[in-house]
């Protein structure tokens, strides 16, 4: 086992991650990459309370995650790395070419964002950034829970994702 999943989800740690993926995939650790959360003790306390005692949660900035990725890759447990936004994942993928698969698990509504699937809303700029990520050879799919179908990026951006 190793760090297998790279997920973009603006709720970071929540039920779909901890139970939806955590139980069937037997997740042993989560790496939460967010520059703001990595500097905020009370937010870390909150997220720590959201994971079960047997699951480890690690807080990183993009810089520290980049430095420690090989350590996570060597971990014998199954792990998931989560970022709350597309930008952070794009920065990580740029620094770490061995990230080959990214799952968009949840980007929710905000003014300016357009519905692409029932759990994914993107601005035109965010859509372009995901396309750029895919152009670098990263497979980008949309999938909220394991039971849901993995929707390829081109299908998602045509607005034909899960409804």
């Amino acid at each position, binding site marked *: 086992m190793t760090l297998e999943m790279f997920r973009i989800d603006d709720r970071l740690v929540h039920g779909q991650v901890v139970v939806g993926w955590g139980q069937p995939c037997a997740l042993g650790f989560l790496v939460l990459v967010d520059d703001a959360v990595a500097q905020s003790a009370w937010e870390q306390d909150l997220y720590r309370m959201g994971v079960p005692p047997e699951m480890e949660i690690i807080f990183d900035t993009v810089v520290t995650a980049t430095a420690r990725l090989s350590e996570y890759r060597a971990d014998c447990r199954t792990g998931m790395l989560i970022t709350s936004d597309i930008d952070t994942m794009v920065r990580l993928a740029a620094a770490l070419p061995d990230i080959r698969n990214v799952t968009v698990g949840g980007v929710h*509504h905000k003014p300016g964002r357009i519905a692409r699937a029932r759990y994914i809303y993107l601005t035109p700029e965010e859509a372009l950034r995901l396309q750029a990520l895919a152009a670098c050879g990263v497979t980008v799919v949309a999938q909220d829970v394991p039971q849901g179908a993995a929707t390829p990026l081109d299908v998602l951006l045509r607005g034909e994702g899960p409804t």
Partner: protein
Amino acid sequence: MSSRNPETTLPWRVRAAILLRLFAIQGAWNYETMMGNGVAFALEPALRLLPGGHRGEPFRQAMTRHSGYFNAHPYLAAVAVGALARAELDGVPVSQIERFRVAAPGPLGSVGDRLVWAGWLPFSSCVALLAFGLGLSPGGVVLVFLGTFNLLHLGLRIWGLNAGWSQGLDVAATLANPVLRQAPAYVARATALVAGMALPVAAHGIIGPGRVLLGGVLASVATGALIVTLLHGRLEGWRLATLALAAFVLFSMVR
């Protein structure tokens, strides 16, 4: 993180109104703001206590803030509603309230999903299935299920609102409660034990007279469960079951 004003109080009528509204927090659930409107709906009785009442500018600004995107476990959203009511009435800076609204939903969703949807609900179901298999009356089985499940359900809503109100935005301490941290593992073990007992007993109860089929059924169950487990992530069991049952009916019609 925040200093609570010990002078701030929440009249019991307001508290009761919030609690009642919490049962309808998902009444306008949608894919854009999710339960955001429900949070504003539940908080509204407390926000009327802001200076100027419901016609005042602080009320309007707070309602705008809280009707935006928010999603958590519906029962544990009570913790957030209590905390947000306290923060608003204490006059906590808006930036802190906004940050809390971003950070709290995930952990509250995760804790609730583990404890309730993946823990207490299947446990309550299995207890009721066992009660059925042991021959309890229909009314008794329904009462066993509703009583078991709602003991935690009602408890969480009431405790959540009170804990959120008393802790304010320092809600992490509330989530550190051993019941929330350790209980899911104990409940999972109890669910496994009761489910193991309930499945054969309830299956026996349904088949009724002519129980010579039970052995064949149990062998089919083991095989079927293995198939559903192996297919996990590709096809949900109930969808597979729909196809199997349709085939079963068609076969028995044409043979």
